């Protein structure tokens, strides 16, 4: 497993659209993508779970990727969050 901590910077936090952008971008990877926030772990490929996590702007999350293409998945996920999730 590889992981990295990253800060959510888009104004709205993990709302519908950012969550859709994130899950759509990580779904093609074979690896499992998990978001750890406030001690809970959420499936990064699920829009619903991402929204349910209630991640606000300024929150620090940890992205964990496990699988054959974990490095690439993590790089993509981190880049997305840092660039503001298309918001």
């Amino acid at each position, binding site marked *: 497993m590889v992981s990295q901590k990253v800060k959510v910077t888009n104004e709205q936090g993990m709302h519908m659209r950012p969550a*859709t952008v994130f899950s759509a971008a990580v779904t093609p990877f074979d690896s499992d993508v998990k978001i750890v926030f406030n001690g809970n772990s959420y*499936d990064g490929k699920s*829009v*619903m779970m991402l*929204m*349910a996590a209630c991640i606000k702007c300024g929150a620090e999350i940890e992205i964990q990727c496990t699988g054959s293409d974990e490095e690439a998945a993590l790089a993509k996920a981190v880049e997305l969050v840092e660039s503001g999730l298309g918001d």
Partner: protein
Amino acid sequence: MYKGIEASRGIGIGSICLIVEHDLSFESKHIDDTEAEKARFNNAIEAFKTETSAMAENIRKNIGPKEAEIMEGHLAMIADPTMAGEMTKMIEAGQCAEAAVTAVCDMFIGMFSKMEDDMMRQRASDISDIKISLLKLLLGIEDVDISKVAPGTVLVAHDLTPSMCSQIVKENVVGIITEVGGKTSHSAILARALEIPAVLSVPNITEIVKDKDTAIVDGTEGDVYINPDGEVISQYVIKREEFVKAQAELKKFIGQKTVTADGTELELFCNIGTPKDARKAVECDGEGIGLFRSEFLFMDRPHLPTEEEQFEAYKEAVEIMGGRTVIIRTLDIGGDKDIPYLGLEKEENPFLGYRAVRYCLANSDMYKIQLRGILRASAFGNVKIMVPLVTCVDEVRAVKALVEECKNELRSEGVKFDENIEVGCMVETAAASLIADILAKEADFFSIGTNDLTQYTMSVDRGNAEVAYLYSAFQPAVLRSIKNIIEAGNAAGITVGMCGEAAADPLMIPLLISFGLKEYSVNPVLVLTARSIISKWSKAEADALAEKVLALTTEKEIVELLKASAK
């Protein structure tokens, strides 16, 4: 009369079509042939996707792309592995499709409806919509076809789902009444986009009314009348005429220049708080941004925004405005706002204390980050820098010196910016008003902040109900101050604008025209109203009124005269 939440303005009078809630109960049974049940479920999902895509398309064409996002959101949710995927797993374990849909949706509804965030709670109603649509498909229930209702229909429903809204024929539906929903619910947003009067959250309305009852929907006040007598109806017919006339009147001003009755062209800008608001300003026909509050970048976060973050935010607004003026006010905070990482101490008198430009000049490293961000954004359009809470000329000079420092740095780094960027000041203190002639020699423009100017001039805390009666921009002291500021700016040849609430006040506008104000910056939704009022006054008429007003001695007399003279 029944009271609800006013969600979409206007008056509707018509005959009720009651949208009955279907009985969606089903018998949970154990499934042996799980493959057949999965096929039945998948058919329902496919039908749901087809229906929803068609509705999204319909809404995009008839209402707008932003409203269509609601239906696209439903598609994204159903495609989620935790939705259809979880439901499929339950069916494989022997549950019937209806039970699987209900269990998974209810779990998410429970989760989202407990959240504090309004937008998140809205997701609960989205999922509830999805659940109802899926159950109807599985149970073979067909909806009333809203697209076929007769002209002059008032729709009454427990809730108006986006799917119902997508079928509404604007010409036939004159009003909407529901039992749930608030001003920001989907139904409210869609009703406003369709310009259909709507009153939401009227308790038990579906039990009170019958099909074909007559209803009056007053979406401006939030009032609903069922089977009212003739007198009430004729009152509302008149109200409806007035509303329609006023709306048509305002629409004539879309895309027009802002000119007085005698042809003087003025600037009508908007006040915004985030880059996204700039889009609203454009939609509402604003001609520029007269006040872009930069505080949003600093609030609700654990540390100072970087130069890059600030640059991106300013640039976004500047690009949306496409070459039109964007006046960015530098950080306006003090001990009354909670920004923990700034380490500001609570003060006895925060409004008289360590705040705004005073704080920024004392923390010039932080201030320069903001100035650099603004300067870099100035390469992408027409940007101006505005300094809040100025009380003496040294402050303006000090900010200008910092701007020059930043320019030199950027030049040596080879970064582009507008060499001629203007630096102006907010005139919102009694001190600044009294030395407006001195400030006008240093500042490139003035913008009068009437809210603070009133507070500081009248020495009144507007939050304190005991003294709030003194808080009025129509107090002779405040009016004299405004007049003095405008005249000093005009004498020095710099633009004077106003970005307080008074700039959109129909009673204040003739006085501002008379005093010689050039730029009016208002809340985006008030652009057309302000443009319409401005168009009614000539300089000569405004001068005649102003002369009478300035001869009066009390606020009460002034407001009475302005009301009597209003156009």
